[in-house]
């Protein structure tokens, strides 16, 4: 069994990789990349050469190409101290046409070209865009830039190698002076004032300041040594990882008395434990310099409500449990009294759910629930009551009840004509005994296989239900990402779905082989 499970897991990982490759081909290679500008208000304001460079920078942000400009190259040289201010000014005078460029500029342009062409870039030089009177148009300044298409294999490779991020003291660029790069272990977490006993590991030179800490939120001990990186969002939730987008709390801020490292005490929602390094941020922003003593300034804020995943999970898991509690007994009763009144009503209900478009019956539930039972029909995160969960849960549970009833009834009826049932009957067992002790146990096996999948997929959320009741859940994330062309999120969410499918299939198989010892996935013992 162990060997079999390992093979299944390896196969599962392979198929998840294949899914990611397919998705990357679909979104990066097949889709027209100019569509990203369709809803971009900045794009229409740009003109001339500025528009071209803006296009390139956006392509880079969406992950289509690698892009570098000549001016950034010179700035980089200046920052590293390779050239002085005078040379920089001279090198930036690239002229309105190549002939008019300064001597120094030509020299550095040649260096720039050589450096990037050797890496497979294409160098583009746009001459200044001039009006008829010879003046340069708005945004028409001459530019030089290098672009390179990201090949698929490289993209897939970097996606998977960057997926797990291991935090280390060399994360922060070596050229930045941040003092000694170490990990310190303390028994008294400074966030709690340095008095209270609370072990923590604090890093300097790492991305996260707190690598290990305790707090009052589930699961109470948190680590930042290894973080999951599913892909960066660009339009849906700018610059934030997909996994964090799904996991971050939502709603209004929860303010608490926070003592900042400078000693400033304030009512704030900042969670100091989540501080990450942002180079140079301390000096750039007066707000940060009043609060922090180093560049670990970026914090996540405490918010009052569940995350996207949390909302979907709460609604989904309750709906799934209700569905199993109601659906299975009803299915058994339908088969027990086959062709009876309950069976007929149940069949009618099943047909209704299968045949009527889901959109139609969810709207029906909403209309009935809102008008007859006076239940809230829209979700309000901040002023809501528990009643707002009722309709989404019912809308999710009712179709799964029908589905479970259908299959339970089918499996029970299939078992009813088996020899062992006839034998039990001839042995004088009562019908109830036969049903509860014999048929049910056999009929439940295929149902058991679906349990892990329905529990895990409760997390992903239901698109229509969440949309109709405006639940801030994870179900809409994929559609939202597609509508906004957020490639990072599309890939991340798909991978998340694929991994869930793989896990739930494996768990389902393991579960049925434990429930029913006759089922064996290994050829041994057969």
């Amino acid at each position, binding site marked *: 069994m162990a060997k079999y499970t390992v093979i299944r897991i390896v196969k599962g990982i392979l*198929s*998840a990789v*294949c*899914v990611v490759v*397919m*998705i990357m081909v*679909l*979104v990066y290679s*097949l*889709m*027209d990349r100019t*569509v990203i500008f369709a809803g971009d208000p900045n794009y229409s304001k740009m003109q001339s050469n500025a528009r071209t460079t803006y296009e390139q920078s956006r392509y880079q942000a969406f992950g289509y190409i690698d892009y570098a400009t000549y001016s950034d190259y010179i700035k980089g040289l200046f920052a590293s101290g390779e050239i002085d201010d005078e040379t920089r000014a001279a090198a930036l005078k690239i002229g309105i046409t190549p002939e008019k460029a300064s001597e120094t500029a030509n020299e550095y342009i040649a260096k720039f070209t050589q450096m990037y062409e050797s890496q497979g870039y294409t160098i583009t030089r746009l001459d200044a865009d001039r009006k008829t009177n010879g003046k340069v148009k708005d945004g028409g300044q001459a530019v030089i830039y290098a672009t390179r298409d990201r090949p698929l294999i490289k993209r897939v490779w970097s996606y998977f190698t960057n997926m797990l991020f291991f935090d280390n003291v060399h994360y922060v660029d070596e050229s930045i002076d941040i003092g000694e790069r170490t990990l310190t272990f303390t028994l008294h977490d400074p966030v709690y004032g340095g008095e209270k006993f609370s072990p923590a590991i604090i890093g300097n030179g790492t991305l996260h300041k707190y690598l290990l800490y305790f707090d009052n939120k589930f699961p109470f001990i948190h680590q930042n040594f290894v973080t999951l990186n599913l892909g960066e969002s660009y339009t849906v939730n700018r610059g934030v990882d997909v996994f964090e987008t799904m996991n971050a709390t939502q709603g209004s801020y929860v303010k608490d008395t926070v003592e900042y490292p400078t000693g400033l005490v304030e009512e704030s929602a900042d969670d100091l434990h989540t501080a990450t390094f942002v180079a140079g941020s301390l000096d750039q922003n007066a707000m940060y310099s009043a609060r922090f003593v180093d560049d670990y300034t970026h914090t996540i804020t405490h918010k009052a409500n569940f995350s996207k995943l949390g909302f979907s999970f709460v609604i989904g898991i309750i709906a799934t449990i209700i569905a199993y509690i109601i659906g299975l007994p009803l299915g058994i009763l339908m088969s027990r009294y086959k062709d009876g009144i309950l069976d007929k009503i149940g069949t009618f209900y099943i*047909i*209704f759910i*299968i*045949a*009527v*478009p*889901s*959109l*139609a019956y969810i*709207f029906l539930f909403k*209309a009935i629930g809102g008008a007859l039972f006076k239940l809230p029909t829209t979700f309000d995160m901040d002023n809501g009551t528990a009643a707002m969960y009722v309709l989404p849960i019912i809308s999710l549970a009712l179709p799964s009840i029908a589905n479970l009833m259908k299959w339970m009834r089918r499996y029970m009826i299939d078992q009813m004509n088996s020899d062992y049932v006839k034998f039990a009957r001839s042995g004088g067992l009562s019908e109830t005994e036969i049903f509860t002790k014999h048929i049910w146990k056999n009929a439940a096996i295929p149902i058991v296989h679906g349990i892990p999948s329905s529990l895990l997929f409760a997390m992903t959320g239901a*698109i*229509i239900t969440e*949309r109709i009741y405006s639940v801030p859940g994870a179900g809409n994330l*994929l*559609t939202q990402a*597609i*509508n906004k062309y957020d490639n990072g999120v*599309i890939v991340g*969410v*798909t991978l998340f*779905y*694929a991994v869930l*499918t*793989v896990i739930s299939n494996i768990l389902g198989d393991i579960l049925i082989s434990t429930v029913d010892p006759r089922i064996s996935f290994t050829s041994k013992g057969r």
Partner: protein
Amino acid sequence: MHEDLSQFTDEELFAPISHSDAESEKIAAPRYSYWKSVFRVFFRKKINIIALALLLFVILFAYIYPSVTEYDPFANLLDPNSKHLGPTQALNYFGHELRWILGTGASGEPTFDAVWNGARISISLAFICAAINMVIGVMLGAVWGFSKKVDMVMMEVYTIIGNVPMILIISVLSMLFSPTFWTMVFALTIVGWLGIAYFIRTQVLIIRDREYNLASRCLGTSIFKIATKNILPFMTSVIVTLLATELPSYISYEVFLSYIGMGMSEMSLGRLIYAAEAAMVTPGWEMEFWSPVAIAAIITVVLYLVGQNLGDASDPRTHM
């Protein structure tokens, strides 16, 4: 009587009958015609006749009504009094005609006409997609079930493609091409056949190694003949039942896609529901929203009912 017979010679008593192979092979059992029995069983139930009549009516109406009437959604665009009228208001405003019976929509168009035009598009989509997917799915599924080598490859393909969210494929395709009717057909069929093929593959696996097929193979029957003569008849009821769930599912899926904003550009039922979503909560406008919902529900329920019962009837075991 007995004495009288003796007066006759053998020639007079018996007439020779020429020997016929065809006659001697005849079995004196009642004639059995498969499809006749299917329809006999099907029409035995009253509900089936009603459902079939309703289905035929809806389909014929959806195709004939829009082609005999003129429908211009923007004819009343400039008339501010014509918008969002309830049924009685519309009948009073425009006169007592069938097309105003459900009121008017956002640009003063008759809801009744809009719904039937949408129904025609949705039904066409369902039938075309089902036809393509069923043909490809059943043929490939049969091969998939028969060949162990194909099975090994296809199972991996199935697990991989099954993980790619369907809405992603559809949205990418509708971005690649413009979201027209035929793009939608393409998007729904490009991977849609896979599920059907997998279903058929499982069914083929179940009966492939049954004794009668083994016997047939031992007697030297070709695989092709086994597939068409031994297995296909067994599968008819399965295929019909599958079709009964597939056809309505395309209509439902189209409605779903339109609702999340990834539908086609034609005003199908789904698009009508999507466009009228805001009208649902506005008092007096509900008709615009519930009419396409109701028609979509009627079409899918009737399709499902007829299909399921036809599937039951096409199972030879019910022909007793």
